[in-house]
């Protein structure tokens, strides 16, 4: 049996026995073959001595059991690492951030406590997946949509705490922002409820977010200050209709007003679906998917030092008769309002000479199964695993890898920033000997900033993974030098990314560490998660 670092075998055996007393022997995993199931299938350290692995796992069935486990862990100073559904692939999966931790597997805590149709919210436990919640509301005919991420087998709580995103209206796409109230087991075993949940008998825990006094929910996301055991989420009342349209603009520099007009339309509520930028000329879609290799003339234009020359690009586009950029905009709501908003959007985009419009259709919701087949299901609150098509074996990808992690910096929501990011990352890709994308377009999960997404393949080849890890770290550094920070990352890179958030001699990290030492003095909870280490491990590393 593997033993956590700094823990004596006798103390660990005693703790394991006490865990078994709490949850039953069946739900404490110490055999190698069972513990191996907690490996991160997409680990950038796969098969290396530095791979982050568990020593054991314990799977409670309720909050009282979580409290008892935390108290036992405190008594014996056992590092524990909570996971919800453990499907945070590309961001650590179910493996701990500190090797040798005991995984606190919350998958069995899968109660849907409340779905309130009238006020459009739910309250769930961490083991509930998006598929579970979708099935629950479908079976009962509840007219609510849940904003699901790609893929949908994760946990609303886990995804929100890692600050993931989805596809519906802006106020739902940011999953942490759309939560309302949480229950947390602290390191000392106490239960804390946030927001209105702090008021005994509160009638509005899932209706008013901030409660009274400091609003602390944020400190439990991307952190290690407590074990979240319940969380409320605002849901979207099933919209009546959906309308979609695509706008194209002809010239290279049109991207600048294109982004600005879209921003106006989104921030005034005209278009409320998630927009998608593309490039017909470059055959580029969202999420950085590789398009076909551009013809040599276009490749040369893109490869120009300092970025493509707009006039030369325009001449090429004119010759080909293909517009440079596209944006798909969508509308949820009443059919007349959707049609009116699409007309208004067209009017605004028409400020760009040569803008053209394609109606994508208006649909009464819910979609029929035939209609669903035409769309990305998460845009209709339907969970899917379709995203795994990227990277899976296919006709165009006959030798798939073993997973991926994302390099995903946040950049400003301007056309200029898109151009600059392409210049910077193209140059970096050359220097780091990485595949060079023709031109990358950002995604629009958040309405006030872009995310650039670049997939790094995970292989089972140690040398390739080593090279990719080094390149990833270098990209993080290069991004930070340009004022762009990662929004989320895998444990292998959390320390490096946290290092870039270094304003005023790492004042933010030092505050996190002060909090950590105060609320978890033995440092038992998720040591190292998001670069936050407890005092005894900071001292050991110094």
């Amino acid at each position, binding site marked *: 049996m593997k033993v956590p670092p700094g823990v004596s075998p006798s103390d660990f055996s005693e703790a394991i026995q006490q865990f078994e007393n709490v949850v039953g022997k069946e*739900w404490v*995993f110490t055999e190698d*073959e069972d513990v*191996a*199931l*907690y*490996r991160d*299938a997409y680990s950038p350290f796969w098969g290396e001595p530095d791979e982050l692995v568990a020593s054991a*796992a314990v*799977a409670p069935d309720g909050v009282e059991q979580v409290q008892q486990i935390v108290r036992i862990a405190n008594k014996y100073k056992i590092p524990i690492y909570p996971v919800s*559904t*453990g*499907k945070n*692939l590309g961001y650590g*999966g179910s493996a701990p951030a500190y090797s040798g931790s005991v995984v606190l*597997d919350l*998958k*069995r805590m*899968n*109660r*849907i*406590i*409340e*779905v*309130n*149709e*009238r006020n459009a919210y739910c309250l769930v*436990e961490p*083991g*509930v*997946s998006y*598929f*579970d919640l*979708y*099935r*629950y509301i*479908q*079976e*009962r005919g*509840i007219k609510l949509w849940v904003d699901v991420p790609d893929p*949908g*087998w994760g946990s609303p709580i886990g995804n929100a705490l890692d600050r993931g995103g989805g596809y519906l209206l802006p106020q739902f796409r940011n999953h942490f922002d759309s939560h309302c109230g949480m229950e947390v087991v602290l390191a000392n075993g106490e239960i804390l409820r946030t927001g209105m949940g702090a008021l005994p008998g509160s009638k509005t825990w899932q209706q008013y977010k901030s409660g009274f006094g400091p609003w602390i929910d944020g400190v439990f996301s991307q952190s290690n200050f407590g074990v979240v055991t319940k969380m409320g989420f605002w849901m979207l009342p099933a919209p009546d209709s959906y309308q979609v349209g695509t706008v194209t603009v002809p010239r290279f520099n049109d991207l600048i007003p294109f982004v600005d007009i879209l921003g106006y339309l989104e921030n005034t509520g005209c278009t409320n679906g998630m927009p998608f930028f593309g490039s017909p000329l470059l055959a580029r879609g969202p999420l950085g998917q590789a398009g076909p290799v551009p013809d040599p003339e276009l490749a040369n234009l893109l490869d120009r030092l300092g970025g493509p020359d707009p006039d030369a690009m325009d001449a090429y586009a004119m010759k080909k008769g293909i517009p440079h950029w596209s944006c798909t905009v969508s509308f949820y709501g009443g059919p007349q309002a959707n049609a009116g908003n699409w007309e208004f959007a067209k009017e605004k985009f028409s400020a760009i000479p040569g803008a053209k419009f394609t109606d994508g259709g208006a649909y009464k919701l819910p979609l029929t199964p035939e209609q669903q*087949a035409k769309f990305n*299901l998460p845009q209709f609150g339907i*969970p*899917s*695993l*379709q995203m*795994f*098509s990227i*990277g*899976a*074996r*296919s*006709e165009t990808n*006959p030798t*798939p*890898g*073993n*997973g991926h992690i994302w390099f995903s910096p946040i950049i400003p929501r301007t056309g200029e920033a898109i151009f600059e990011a392409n210049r910077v990352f193209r140059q970096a890709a050359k220097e780091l000997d990485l595949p060079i994308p023709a031109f990358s377009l950002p995604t629009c999960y958040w309405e006030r900033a872009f995310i650039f997404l670049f997939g790094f393949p995970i292989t089972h080849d140690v040398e390739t993974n080593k090279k990719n890890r080094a390149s990833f770290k270098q990209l993080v550094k290069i991004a930070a030098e340009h004022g762009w920070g990662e929004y989320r990352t895998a444990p292998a890179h959390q320390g490096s990314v946290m290092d870039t958030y270094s304003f005023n001699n790492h004042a933010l990290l030092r505050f996190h560490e002060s909090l950590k030492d105060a609320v978890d003095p033995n440092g038992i909870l998720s040591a190292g998660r998001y670069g936050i280490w407890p005092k005894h491990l900071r001292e050991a590393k110094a």
Partner: protein
Amino acid sequence: MKNTGIGLAVAFAFLLAAHTHTAAAQQGERVKSAWVKATVSGEGQPRGYVEYQNYCSMCHGEGPGKPGTMALQAKYKGAEPALLDQRTDLTPQLIKTYVRNGISIMPIFRKTEISDADLDAIAAYLTRNNKK
């Protein structure tokens, strides 16, 4: 008046039922640890079929957007069915190895997700048509 009162009470209760799906005493309603497509009824089906729908069909099922089916189509190019539940050459051991070890981008599944008993049932279902 009395009847009207009862009628109103029933109507009120109906409205509550329609609007608040709250399990008794805030204990919550347990869900299966994965998903059954709403249009698929598990009634009368063997456990392995139901668990296959729960755990596997969202990736290995029919229709667009199923990466597992897409990958097996690309791998076998029709020499074997792309749909796992139409195969006749799988062994229980092979199925368990892939579920517990992952393959390519398919991750590992833990026992809190798919129990050994669930996995036995899935393996039995997927090997039901094998030649004896």
